[in-house]
């Protein structure tokens, strides 16, 4: 019914616009206004459109400024990892450069569109080329890009080329499947046991990440679900696996992401620098939590009015989410990450069961 009414309204609106246009034309005729119906832009059109072009420049600037003013607060808080700091620095330097280029070029484009609009019988300037000019605006962008390239490549190399045999690091497997995450700790030997999907059906399905029980390295491995903990200021080496399709382990607060590929072990490493408790005290995070809780409160009122339960208040937690399309519940494939002090981490991990207990 609503569909029919909406359709009818749209059609009637269309007819109204058409008739208003007809009336306008008739009035113009009656007034004796020379109707230019060539459908080719004349000086009046050029004048108006040229001015609109300049107004559009203002619109672009306003939208840009508005978005930065209104939406900066939803951006991620400061990085919670070591490499996150150079990451953010590179990001803001790159943004500064492109915003500068944007401001200048949009201004020239729209200002020229306004200034040289075809009025007063102006004559165009027959200017075919200028190789020096081309050189200038080829070389300058090239230099800027080269600087960004080198800076980016050095940062990338520092992030991606980490020592896999670092004995000080904690090795954790992130195991992705449709549609949840599991984390496997390497245990005391800090070596993950071999694993493969063909072992998944062992032990009545309790071998949830398919550890190969013939490999002793795996006997002390610890599998957790729902949440995993990492100690602050310790290097973590993540090894990613997937059980079925492509997933992506995305941990935005740490500036970390790596695809999980079935048949392959991918890896990413970072050192967390802020405990969950510390991050909760961060001003930006606290403000965000406040905003979210206000929204949840408003939503809860609506739920209560419908006789349903209200929502629980939200507390900040680091997140692991999936960022590669993986099927129906791609939008809800998450795991909580807790960054502990070393003491709390040790307490937490020692309370978890190793694979050997499943093997009994």
């Amino acid at each position: 019914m609503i569909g029919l009414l909406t359709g009818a309204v749209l059609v009637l609106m269309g007819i109204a616009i058409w008739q208003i246009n007809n009336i306008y034309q008739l009035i113009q005729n009656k007034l004796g206004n020379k109707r230019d119906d060539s459908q080719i832009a004349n000086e009046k059109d050029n004048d108006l459109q040229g001015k609109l072009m300049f107004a559009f420049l203002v619109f672009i600037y306003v939208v840009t400024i508005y978005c930065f003013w209104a939406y900066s607060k939803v951006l991620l808080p400061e990085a919670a990892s070591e490499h996150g700091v150079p990451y953010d620095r590179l990001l803001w330097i790159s943004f500064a450069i492109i915003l500068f280029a944007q401001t200048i070029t949009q201004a020239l484009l729209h200002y020229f569109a306004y200034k040289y609009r075809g009025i007063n019988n102006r004559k165009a300037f027959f200017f075919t080329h200028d190789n020096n000019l081309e050189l200038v605006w080829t070389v300058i962008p090239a230099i800027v890009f080269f600087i960004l390239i080198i800076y980016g490549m050095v940062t990338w190399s520092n992030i991606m080329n980490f020592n896999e045999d670092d004995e000080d690091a904690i090795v954790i497997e992130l195991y992705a499947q449709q549609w949840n995450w599991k984390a496997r700790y390497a245990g005391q030997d800090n070596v993950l046991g071999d694993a493969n999907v063909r072992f998944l059906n062992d032990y009545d399905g309790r071998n949830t990440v398919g550890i190969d029980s013939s490999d002793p390295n795996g006997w002390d491995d610890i599998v957790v679900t729902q949440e995993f903990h990492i100690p602050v200021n310790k290097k973590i080496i993540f090894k990613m696996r997937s059980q079925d399709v492509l997933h992506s382990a995305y941990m935005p607060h740490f500036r970390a992401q790596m695809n999980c590929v079935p048949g392959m072990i991918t890896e990413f490493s970072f050192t967390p620098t802020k405990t969950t408790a510390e991050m909760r005290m961060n001003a930006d995070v606290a403000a965000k939590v406040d905003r979210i809780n206000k929204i949840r409160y408003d939503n809860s009122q609506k739920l209560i009015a419908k006789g349903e339960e209200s929502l629980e208040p939200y507390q900040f937690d680091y997140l692991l989410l999936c960022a590669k399309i993986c099927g129906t519940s791609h939008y809800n494939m998450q795991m909580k990450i807790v960054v502990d002090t070393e003491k709390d981490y040790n307490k937490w991990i020692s309370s978890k069961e190793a694979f050997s207990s499943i093997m009994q």
Partner: protein
Amino acid sequence: MEAKKDKNPRIRVKMESTEFGDLLSDKKKNDFHQVHHHKDTFITKYIFSQDHKMIAKQYLITGVLFMGFIGIALSLLFRLQLAWPEESFAVFDIFLGKWAPEGVMDPNIYLALVTIHGTIMVFFVLTAGLSGTFSNLLIPLQIGARDMASGFLNMVSFWLFFLSSAIMIASLFVEAGPAAAGWTIYPPLSALPQAQSGSGMGMTLWLISMAIFVASSLLGSLNYIVTVINLRTKGMSFFRLPLTIWAFFVTAIIGVISFPVLLSAALLLIMDRSFGTSFFLSDIFVQGEVLHYQGGSPVLFEHLFWFLGHPEVYIVLLPALGITSEIIATNSRKPIFGYRAMVASILAIAFLSTVVWGHHMFISGMNPFLGSVFTFTTLLIAIPSAVKAFNYITTLWKGNLQFNPGMLFSIGLVSTFITGGLTGIILGDSTLDINIHDTYFVVAHFHLVMGISALYGLFAGVYHWFPKLFGRMMNKNLGYIHFWVTAISAYGVFFPMHFVGMAGLPRRYYTNTAFPYFDDLADINVIITLFALLAGAAQLVFLYNFIHSMFFGKEAEKNPWKSTTLEWTAPVEHMHGNWPGEIPHVYRWAYDYSKPGQQDDFVPQIIPIGKDEEITEH
């Protein structure tokens, strides 16, 4: 060597050789061949036409009006879901049927909508609808040829495109749902119906449709390349070609190089799906059982897909840039600034586009060293792109700007090309990609450069060459309304989206409500959807203008925009062979606008150099 100019339908048309025809045969001024045209029936004129102008119109109507309409409609459906998650909508009930129980969208169909939207827009609208329409219309007319090298292959190319469109639309209605693994259809998700229902018959039909699409595209490209090389009229050297032709020509070459790789990826995927091979699959456990596949890698698919995928976006963009060059020059009454630099940048972009594909795969698990290589090449490709933008701006400088709707869209293209291109510099840096890969930042970027920029090129081309296509003018006031509402909505949709992406929200999420962390993005999503609805409504103005003007538009004169290029020397009424009598000869480049010492503010290419005229360009 003249064709009969009378009304006798049996027009005998002779193809004339160019100077370069000497290279192909020993005789000067040879006829290539004679073409007999018999009286056209309705079928041979409108349905199975071999005339490039009719085929152009067929591509326009199928690719842009029909498939474009569907592509936009799909996007409005999922934008409604994103703004008001899990709400009940009557439109969902009407259009999604069983996929919207009680009017609430099912998560599976969300992924399918997103997939088919992307597929239709990238391939059917922006590749076939853009190249198919304008390469077909303009190549013979602007180079001075009677028709394409092979009218028959041209016809086959369109009908294969039509068939592939029909199959893609049909796939929307299969029981288990259409393909739903994203337009990038990575395996294993796209290979295994057990992992996703859309990966059953829906995916099979997608693959068949795309295989036929690739065939259509290759036939078209072949024709364009051969025609441009061989059938230029006397005097039409390569450096006298308008930039549209350079763009279409180079685009066709990129297409021939890259589309076959997509086809190979599709064939290997078909083999994995139906013939038990393991090109892309290994060590998979799904629905309780270990599958037999061993040794394959999804990363291989990604390489094969993106080897096409990246050039594809330049296949989309280059024709739009060529069209913009033409329209800005004509409407500035000024030569396009830096013609040779523009040609060089087209060639540079084309070459570089084949070596940047890995920037879609920075965190795919491939060797990080490749990440460095692809960052390097990707930031290189920004250089010729920047040169083009500066040249457009300089063309406007000290021009005599005529703001026809085509000109507005061309300037709009430059604006959104700059905005979108600049964010590409962020994404092209492998380091920065880590935290924004597969987020809405990517979606904002590619929509600005492709979905808006290239689309503007398409619109600009339609407004500008409508008189050539239909012998009538489109209504300019409706054109102005179409442009301004679209321009405002476009930035309204995609500017805020960058922030949503930088906030950490991944793409292809059915709803954001599973994460309280994203609750404060809900308002932004509503604004984006509202602007999207406005943009959609604005396209109805264009649709009305187009259809109304086709039949009732003001009759066009031969050269309404006072342009220098050859297509405007052909008669308004279409005829096979394009020109009665001899094909015009060309004496100058395509951009003698406001040349000093000339009477008019433009000198068509067919006008010989005057006695006292200075030869400034090739």
